[in-house]
Structure formats: structure tokens, C-alpha cells
């Protein structure tokens, strides 16, 4: 059975089409990375799947249950960590967990033991007795995720779990999500960070303007924009033509040149000593080389190719 199945959902706010015919599926036991820039519709998608909003059109199923027709059944099997920390600041960490357990109608004793277990697991045992107001951003996030896991959800939704964290907390959050993933927690993860999706997700869906514009594994997405590239910078722009000729034997496609930067972009197949061969050829052609760089495609390149803009291009203020 599919953990998530979205078919052609639409959601508009006035003239803004937050979701514009978005469809995607996600198998159980996997981590899906939903990648998109500000305003792409990530949070809106999560809100539909977690029963917070109703789509204008289209259907969305979680574990085969319709989110619109049966929201209570869906709520019983999901965990949500929203984009903004959803904790009761005035209570302690432990109280927060026991409180949510009560709202899930777990027996009090089970709620207490589950809370203890999660505090341990999320490295919050000492902090558990302090009020959340005194927590750091990273601790809040960890507590937030712990709260989402209290009733052992069948699908976990994490909406930009590392946004706003410092690099260290971000890294430990990655470890945590990786761990959950390797235990088989089905996770729907949204992010603006390309490296994050690549590191954590089994497969990636790229969305923009409320639509899916690409999907696949990180490798598949990279293949779509072509393989590796060699970026060569030479000393004299006049020699660009001669350099291109010299490197033609290595290229797997058309060589691009940029005279302003005195650079050549050569599509290649990595490995097999391309780098020394390139330098030798340039040397033979008497082109002075300033820099040679082997550039592997990043998801940034994927984004640029697919949307014509970088992921963080449009600074949108909401």
C-alpha cells in the first residue's frame, strides 16, 4: 500500500495558486524529499495531507485513507512537525510529551513511559524538566519531532525541519532523520536545501508553483541535466579556440566557452585520468592553464535547468 497518494490537487488563496494540479505517490517505509523554493507549495501540500486544510479539487490519501472524507482516521496515524515549532512553551519538555499522549487518548502510564523513552532518545532527559521557553532552537525542534512520534505514527511529516538551525544542530537533525529513516519510519520531508534532500531522501520530488516539475532519485535527477563537467580556466582568452580543439577528444558533447571568464565547459565522463590528460593536452597546445576543476552536478544545477532559476532566487515575503 502507498503511504501517500496525491492525485491532481488544487488549492488557491485568492489569485494565488498554492497547489496547481500536484500529483505524487510515496511508498511505505521510504523517505520522500519534497524540494522546492519559497512559496512552491510545500507547506500547503503538508497541510492537505495532515488534514489542516481541504484542497479545492483532487484527492489525497494517507495509508489509503481519504484525508477529506476521514480526517480523524488520518490524524490517528500521522505525526506532524510543522514549519513553525508546535510546542507549548510554558510547559516542560516532559509535560509537552505527556500532554500530546493524552490528546491521542493513550493510557496515562503508557504516555509517561513513551515520554521517558522519547526524551532519552532525543537527548532531552535533563532538559525534559525545564520549561520549553528556556530551550534553544535545536532543542525545540527535537522536542517537536519527539511529540510527532508519540503515538508511533505510520507516516511522519517533517516540514523544513532544519530551517533556522545553526550548522551543528542541523547536522544532528540530519543524523536523527537518517536514523528514523533506517528504522523504516515512512517520512515525508520538505526542504529548501538541495544537499538535505540528497542526504536524507530515498527519492526526491521537485516542486515549483504548486506542481511537480521533476522526480526520481538524486542520481536520476542529475542524469537529466547531463553528467560531470570539466571547467578549465586559461590565462589568455585568445587561446580559447585552440584549447577547445585540444580538448575535443575528451568531450562527450559540445564544449561551451566563455571569453569573459576565459573558461571552457567540457562535458566529460569522469574517471580514466581525464584530469591529467586534459592538462597534458592543454600543455601540448601551449595554453597556459590557471585552473582546472571537475564539477559534479549538484541539485542546484538540476533546479537551474528545470526552472531557469536558482532555488533561492525569488525572495518572497509573506
Amino acid at each position, binding site marked *: 500500500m502507498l503511504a501517500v497518494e496525491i492525485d491532481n490537487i488544487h488549492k488557491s488563496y485568492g489569485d494565488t495558486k498554492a497547489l496547481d494540479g500536484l500529483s505524487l505517490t510515496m511508498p511505505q517505509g521510504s523517505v520522500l524529499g519534497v524540494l522546492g523554493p519559497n512559496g512552491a507549495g510545500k507547506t500547503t501540500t503538508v497541510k492537505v495531507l495532515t*488534514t489542516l486544510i481541504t484542497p479545492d479539487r483532487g484527492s489525497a490519501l494517507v495509508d489509503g485513507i481519504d484525508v477529506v472524507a476521514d480526517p480523524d482516521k488520518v490524524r490517528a496515524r500521522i505525526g506532524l512537525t*510543522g514549519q513553525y515549532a*508546535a510546542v507549548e512553551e510554558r510547559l516542560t519538555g516532559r509535560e509537552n510529551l505527556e500532554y500530546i499522549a493524552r490528546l491521542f*487518548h493513550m493510557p496515562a502510564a503508557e504516555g509517561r513511559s513513551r515520554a521517558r523513552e522519547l526524551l532519552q532518545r532525543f537527548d532531552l532527559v535533563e532538559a525534559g524538566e525545564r520549561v520549553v521557553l528556556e530551550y534553544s532552537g535545536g532543542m525545540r525542534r527535537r522536542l517537536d519531532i519527539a511529540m510527532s512520534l508519540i503515538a*508511533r505514527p505510520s507516516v511522519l511529516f517533517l516540514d523544513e525541519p532544519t530551517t533556522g538551525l545553526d550548522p551543528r544542530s542541523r547536522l544532528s537533525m540530519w543524523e536523527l532523520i537518517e536514523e528514523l529513516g533506517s528504522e523504516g519510519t515512512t517520512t515525508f520531508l520538505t526542504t529548501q536545501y538541495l544537499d538535505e534532500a540528497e542526504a536524507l531522501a530515498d527519492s526526491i520530488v521537485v516542486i515549483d508553483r504548486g506542481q511537480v516539475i521533476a522526480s526520481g532519485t538524486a542520481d536520476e535527477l542529475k542524469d537529466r541535466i547531463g553528467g560531470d563537467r570539466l571547467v578549465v580556466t586559461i590565462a589568455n582568452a585568445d587561446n580559447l579556440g585552440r584549447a577547445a580543439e585540444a580538448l575535443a577528444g575528451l568531450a562527450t558533447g559540445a564544449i561551451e566557452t566563455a571569453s569573459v571568464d576565459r573558461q571552457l565547459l567540457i562535458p566529460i565522463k569522469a574517471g580514466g585520468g581525464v584530469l591529467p590528460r586534459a592538462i597534458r593536452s592543454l600543455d601540448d597546445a601551449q595554453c597556459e592553464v590557471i585552473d582546472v576543476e571537475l564539477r559534479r552536478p549538484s541539485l542546484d544545477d538540476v533546479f537551474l535547468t528545470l526552472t531557469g532559476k536558482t532555488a533561492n532566487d525569488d525572495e518572497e515575503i509573506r
Partner: protein
Amino acid sequence: MTSPETLEVGKRARQAVPTGPEWLLRDAWTEATRHLRVIPRNPELIAFATIQPIMFVLLFVYVFGGAITAPGYSDYNQYLLPGIMAQTVVFGSATTGVGLAEDLSKGLVDRLRSVPMQQSAVIVGRTLADLVKNTFTFVIMLVVAFMVGFRFEGSLFQALVATVLLLLFSYALSWVQALVGLSVKSVEAANSLGFLWMFPVTFVSSAFVPTETMPNWLQPIAENNPFTRVTNAGRALYNGLPADGAVVEAFAWSLAIIGVFAVLSFRKFRQTTAR
């Protein structure tokens, strides 16, 4: 396929989608305890909840007490104090609106809407917590009132009915405040708006002076103000005076306000949170 995981999920799903009033109460109480728990940790809150009723009683009694006489009462204080008590618990209802606006402005409300609880419990729980807080305020006020010479001049039962009535009315206004808090966009607005309407409601009434002393055009407004009706009923009961149908009418007003504003608040809650 019956792995332990699916079995567990299935079992939980069954027990986690409860309906019926007992679950509403249970969820509401969970919510209420969330609010009540933090009160003891907040010395300023306790100080405020304690000082305010004391201050109100002393200010009104010593500033106005000597200047005015109320015909038919042994002492103006016997007239005035039930009015002050009514006003104080009504003011106490403001925390409902502010509290809900605060919850809405945080991410917590999204979490609450994604767990299998009864959604209306969020508001019911808030009003219950404020009722508990207002009862505390009321008790303090009663003690201070006794210290400045207030007495139950009717039976203890009548005094009890009067107390229940005033608290019920403050509970009813909590529902009005709930609608205010859910309708405005910010905590600050909930605070100002929540207090704003309470001034005319509590002053254009019989709480501090008999309505006959007001200008002619104002009298019918003051006379028909539900707050006047409740104050009159409470005052009559505390003083052991004949209350006629006033008590029944006051209870009816309170229940009607709860009914109407509960429906409006639930609807507003669904609208504002489903975005």
C-alpha cells in the same frame, strides 16, 4: 499481511477516533490543565489575579461608598459590592480571548488540528481554565468584601445561588471573548477589543448606581442590559430581597449567551484554522 506494525496501527486507530460528549470533556480537561498548570509557575499572574479583586473592592467602597446611598439597602456597600463582584468576574473573562489569540498565533494550533482530538475541546478547555481562575478571583473578592463589612442578608442557599449565577455569567462572557479572540488577528487586538466592550456593558448598568439616576434615554438601555439583569438577581439573592423571576431570567440569559457564542466560536475556529 498482518505484521505487528499494522496490527498496532489498526488498534490505535480504533481507540483514537472517539466521539461523544465524554471524549469532548476529556479532551477539554486535557486542554484546561495545560493552561492551569502554568499558573502556579507564574508569580505575576497569581499576584495580578489576587491584587485586582482586592483593589477593586477597596477602591470602589472607599471612593464611592460614602457619597452615595441606595434606598432599600442597609448600607450602600450591600448594594455596591455585588455589582463589583459581577464586574470583576466579567473582566476576568478577557483572558479567554487573549489566550485563544495567543494559541492561534503559535504553531501549536496546527498540531492540535492534526491529532485525533475533539477540535472544539480547544475552546471548551480554555473557557474551563478561565472559569477555574475566575472562581479563585471570586473567593478572594468575597473574603475582602467580608472584611469591609459585607454580609449575606439572605440564606446561605441564596448566597450560593448568587455566586453560581455570577460565575456562570462570567463563563458565558468567556464565550463572547472566545469569539473576539478567534476573530482578531493578534494578541494585542484581542486584549484591547476584549476590554473595550466590557466598559460600556458593565458601567451602563445597575452595578454601581441605580438606573433611575441615569438620563432618561440611557435608562432603558441600562435596564435591559443582561449584565444589569444578572447583577440585580445576584444582588437580591445576597441581600435576601424578593427576586421574583429575575433569577430565572438571569440564568436564562447566561445559558443563551453560552449557546449562541459557542456555536459562533466553533464555526470561527474551523474557519480561521483551516487555512
